[in-house]
């Protein structure tokens, strides 16, 4: 028997491991994969040549997987883009030039890319182009529960909606066929529970072709819209959608589960899986229509399904997208439609089996076999004793040290603090609770500009390196040009940390060769006259520089440098450098707790017997900041000695 050597690669996210043998396996096989890896495998099988991404949960593992594999396929161009708009344009440019392009982004990423997206709906493409967006019901890791399904109709592009890892894989492959058949962008919409669902996945053959330079002369197409041409192209896009709708009537992404009775269920996405189980729980045998082609809807399939039914329950997360459209479709049929509009299901949060069981039970007026609320209530009572475990900065994180210094400077001042998207967003949470606004990528600058016209207080904006390049630079140019009065704190930790330490334009690494852009030079060249660069891990030295900037009348920028701890640890491990933790000297410690108060490092606990501070050696990163803050020098490096 041929033995296949399993390759183990430490993924660029949080030391998570990933098995790559299945991802690059040449033949069809049955495997176990997370949805995002199944999507990445489908991208490879579809012979996509150009992929570009800006990271964002819950899509990160698509980027990370293709990043990791890009070195294995010479014909695959993979880029980490400055933002989602550039990523979509990069993939679209390749598709216009004649090779397949792919990008994925989180729900709100499409807001950034939407300008490009809407016009692509008019121009169409040449070779295949697939855009995958991942909505986040429950807002697990997003600023909103935005429902991306409405984008498809608004931009006149078809949309597929898989419910499982297997279907996500299939949707990508079908998406490319559709895109090339009609020369349109194919939109795929997933949700967190599809992207982060691991399951049995049957993958297909992996055949790749070489990437050869082409000539624009062979394209014979133009990609622009204006005036009369825009109107002509729109008409054309709408016409294509009618043909696509006919194709969708035959699509295997739509499924009917046969059943009995006069009540049926129409559902889509991961809700379909909850429905199947809820029907088991309730011991019901209702017919179910699962819709996987959510725009344009397969109207004949829906009409056939409701024919003979008296009542339909619509089960979908977030907004009543299907419900409103099916209500319109069935308006003359006498069908009773139950869902969100009737109050049986909610529009907030994500669904699960208990929630679907409850909704169906209400409609059919049958008590559920289990009282889920009672179970949750009893568990909540037991949990009363539990301390919170909110997300917190890692041991060795530079942001914790920067904020410590900033707090020393601003604690006696009146200020407004406009935060931005990144790990530092956590300053809004307990124990810090320092944040007056946080809307979206780059919002700290524009909001600060508006506020400084009106407020008496000093206006402070905070932004990370990645977010600065993504959407912060126009706001900074605007503030300089209009002579605003604000202080911007740039947290430069070398990577896009929160999503798994991917590179950004300020990083010195990438999937291919990169140019590292110097933030200080960018800021100065934009005309900022007051710029101070500080070292995050020397917090006590930084307060004067921070005071200097905050006291300045005009735009001032503080750039705090210090690498992300997770990224830095990985670099050290790669170079065989040890991570040397700190220790507390028991004879010196006098339980002053300066290392605990206002610092909140997860490596520091209390020894309840001695009431002294104790450093957890498997968590401590050896950043030395706590040692610097200790007034009696009770903390020092272990020097790598083991004392256990």
């Amino acid at each position, binding site marked *: 028997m041929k033995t296949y050597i399993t390759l183990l690669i430490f993924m660029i996210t949080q030391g998570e491991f990933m098995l790559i043998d299945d991802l690059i396996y040449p033949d069809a096989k049955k495997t176990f994969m997370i949805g995002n890896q199944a999507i990445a495998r489908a991208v490879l099988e579809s012979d996509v040549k150009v992929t570009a991404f800006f990271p964002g949960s819950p899509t990160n593992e698509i980027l990370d997987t293709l990043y990791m594999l890009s070195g294995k396929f010479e014909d695959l161009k993979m880029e980490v883009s400055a933002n989602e708009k550039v990523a979509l344009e990069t993939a679209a440019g390749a598709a216009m030039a004649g090779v397949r392009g792919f990008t994925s982004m989180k729900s709100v990423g499409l807001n950034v890319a939407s300008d490009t997206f809407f016009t692509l709906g008019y121009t169409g493409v040449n070779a295949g182009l697939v855009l995958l967006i991942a909505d986040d019901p429950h807002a697990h890791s997003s600023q909103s529960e935005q429902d991306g399904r409405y984008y498809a109709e608004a931009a006149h592009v078809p949309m597929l909606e898989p419910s499982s890892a297997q279907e996500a894989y299939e949707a990508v492959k079908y998406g490319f066929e559709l895109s090339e058949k009609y020369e349109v962008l194919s939109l795929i919409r997933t949700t967190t529970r599809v992207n982060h669902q691991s399951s049995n996945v049957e993958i297909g053959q992996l055949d790749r072709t070489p990437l050869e330079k082409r000539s624009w002369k062979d394209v014979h197409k133009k990609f622009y819209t204006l005036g009369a041409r825009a109107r002509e192209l729109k008409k054309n896009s709408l016409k294509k959608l009618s043909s696509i709708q006919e194709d969708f009537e035959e699509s295997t992404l739509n499924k009917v589960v046969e059943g009995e009775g006069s009540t049926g269920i129409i559902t889509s996405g991961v809700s379909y899986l*909850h429905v199947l189980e809820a029907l088991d729980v309730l011991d019901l045998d209702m017919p179910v229509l699962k819709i996987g082609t959510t725009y344009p809807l397969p109207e004949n399939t829906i009409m056939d399904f409701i024919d003979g039914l008296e009542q339909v329950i619509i089960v979908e997360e977030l907004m009543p997208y299907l419900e409103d459209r099916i209500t319109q479709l069935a308006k003359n049929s006498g069908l009773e439609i139950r869902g969100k509009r009737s109050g049986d299901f909610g529009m907030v949060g994500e669904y*699960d089996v208990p929630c679907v069981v409850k909704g169906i039970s209400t409609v059919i007026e049958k008590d559920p076999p289990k009282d889920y609320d009672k179970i949750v209530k009893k568990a909540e009572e037991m949990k009363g004793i539990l301390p919170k475990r909110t997300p917190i900065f890692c041991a060795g994180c530079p942001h914790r040290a920067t904020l410590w210094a900033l707090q020393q400077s601003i604690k006696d001042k009146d200020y407004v603090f406009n935060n931005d998207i990144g790990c530092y967003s956590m300053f809004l949470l307990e124990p810090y609770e320092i944040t007056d606004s946080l809307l979206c990528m780059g919002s700290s600058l524009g909001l600060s500009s508006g506020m400084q016209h009106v407020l008496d207080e000093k206006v402070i904006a905070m932004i990370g390196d990645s977010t600065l390049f993504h959407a912060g630079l126009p706001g900074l140019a605007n503030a300089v040009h209009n002579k605003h009065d604000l202080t911007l704190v740039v947290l430069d930790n070398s990577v896009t940390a929160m999503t798994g330490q991917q590179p950004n334009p300020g990083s010195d690494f990438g999937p291919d060769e990169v140019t590292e852009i110097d933030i200080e030079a960018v800021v100065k060249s934009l005309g900022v006259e007051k710029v101070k660069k500080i070292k995050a891990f020397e917090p006590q030295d930084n307060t004067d520089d921070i005071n200097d900037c905050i006291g300045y009348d005009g735009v001032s920028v503080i750039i705090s440098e210090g690498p992300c701890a997770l990224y830095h640890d990985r670099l050290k491990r790669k170079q065989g450098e040890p991570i040397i933790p700190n220790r507390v000297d028991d004879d010196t410690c006098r339980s002053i707790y300066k290392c605990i108060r206002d610092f909140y490092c997860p490596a520091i*606990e209390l020894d309840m017997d001695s009431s002294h501070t104790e450093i957890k050696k498997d968590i401590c990163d050896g950043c030395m900041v706590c040692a610097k803050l200790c007034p009696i020098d009770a903390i020092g490096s272990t020097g790598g000695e083991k004392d256990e």
Partner: protein
Amino acid sequence: MSEDKFNIMLSGVGGQGLMLLSQTIGRACSNMDKKVITGEQHGLSQRSGSIYVHLRLGEDAHSPLIPYGEADLMVSLEGMEVLRNLEYLKPDGHIISSNRLMHHPIETNKVVQEEIHEYITIEDIVEKLEEFTKNIYMIDSLSLAKEAGNPRTENVVLLGTVAAISDFPLEKDVLKEVVKETVPEKTIEVNLKAFELGYKEGVKNG
């Protein structure tokens, strides 16, 4: 009607290696052509936050999320995190957890500010868990991992203990094979030792 469904709620603290547990069991199922589905929590990449994986085996498990009160087994790499997910446990379901507690800075700060007298203890937690089940196995997995030769093999120790549960639907040897496939080659020996130590602990506790 006997259902083909076995639900495992995995939990822990970011950085402890929870994903290895779900990946190993998932791959073992896949190798045996058994249906498996998970609902995983990824997202913010910081260490030290609460994390979980819903892991479901069998033809009748459709949803990626375990319904409340239906986890046959809860496995946790940290004591508090079992209690945090208690609503998922089936009445009298099994709990296998590390007895280790990782105290969050907010909790530490409360002790320092004298808002609370002391840290929560594993006994406090077990007392609450007992309201739901008597099948609680708190294991000193850190010591066993150190005994195996690497404190970072705590997750594999717990996997060994899981294999000792009588109604767990996968064979011990199948899991061991996948551990061999999954961990870095240099660490196979120490991981297998960790697995065996965990298994023995499981057998000892019945």
